[in-house]
């Protein structure tokens, strides 16, 4: 079955803003948006978009589908019987067509020190109980696709806001029993661009393709930051 797909094209050298271009693609019950984009690229090799794994693991193929952030590989044409418009992820600068500059996102991720911080040197394995694992496991499923940043109106208003994925990752390490780096991460989370930049819209959790629930992590972070605030008042 033939289907029309509108793609927001943008060439920074010639265009002042993205413009929609319509393409015809063959579609059956299993055709994903990524499959459709690959078909379009056969027709027009100049179409730029990112992709890699085709199975919602790599997080490369994030695009806006009818204005909602989605992974191209996990979104199917069968669910869009009417109009289908694909554009670049919102709240990021477009480099070309569907390719955005992810650097602000990566900078925010790095700012929260997303790795185990522990001075203890030991050759023994660091054992964890199932209960200790359960505290952070859900937050460890993030694939850094950036959909939550496109969904977040606060990141759209203030690009300095750390944002859902970075705060979730900070929370993931702060909750890890093997980690001792919470004191090093809290200053970023305590700032106005940290957890307090969030107004609990919750759309980040709706669009997350891995059900990480960043909104829950950010609000746990608010409780952690509020208790850090109270503790700091009693410190000299």
């Amino acid at each position, binding site marked *: 079955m033939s289907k029309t797909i509108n793609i927001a094209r943008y060439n920074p050298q010639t265009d002042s803003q993205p413009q929609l271009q319509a393409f015809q693609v063959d579609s059956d019950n299993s055709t994903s948006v990524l499959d459709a984009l690959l078909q379009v690229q056969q027709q027009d090799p100049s179409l730029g978009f990112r992709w890699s794994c085709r199975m919602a693991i790599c997080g490369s193929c994030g695009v806006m589908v009818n204005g909602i952030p989605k992974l191209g590989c996990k979104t199917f044409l069968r669910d869009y019987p009417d109009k289908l418009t694909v554009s670049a992820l919102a709240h990021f600068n477009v480099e070309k067509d569907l390719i955005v500059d992810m650097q602000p996102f990566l900078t925010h991720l790095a700012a929260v020190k997303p790795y185990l911080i522990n001075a203890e040197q030991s050759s023994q394995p660091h054992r964890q109980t199932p209960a200790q694992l359960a505290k952070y496991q859900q937050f460890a499923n993030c694939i850094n696709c950036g959909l939550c940043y496109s969904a977040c109106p606060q990141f759209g208003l203030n690009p*300095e806001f750390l944002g859902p994925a970075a705060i979730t990752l900070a929370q993931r390490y702060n909750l890890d029993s093997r980690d001792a780096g919470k004191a090093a991460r809290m200053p970023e989370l305590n700032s106005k661009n*940290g957890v307090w930049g969030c107004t609990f819209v919750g759309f980040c959790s709706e669009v997350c393709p891995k059900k990480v629930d960043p909104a829950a992590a950010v609000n746990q972070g608010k409780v952690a930051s509020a208790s850090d605030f109270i503790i700091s008042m009693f410190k000299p």
Partner: protein
Amino acid sequence: MNDTTQAKRSDEPVWWALFSAGGVCFAVVVPGAILALALLPAFGGFSADNLSYPRISALLHDALWGLAGLAFIGSVICLPLFHAAHRIHHGLHDLKLGGGLLSKVLCYGSAAALSLLALYLIS
């Protein structure tokens, strides 16, 4: 955003704590107050005499050495005011109309002023 300068701690936990407490009051205490003071007497749940001035005045000023009145005003007026002020402050930011120091002073300032007025009126 970098390691050399540490980000400044936000004062938001204070406003967020008042907002959270106000939210609980809005959801639990305010509907209870509306039920007891407006709906039940109107629909004959109990006699309006139960809301007579001497009785309510005694409840507000004398019960628990005056703490009952303080708790009632605090949970039905003061904390919900701070909850509303917080929503308006952040709503203005969302509408790109504020969210800075001015809207903070205006929102939380009016919540504080109206709270003090409410406490003054029952004192």
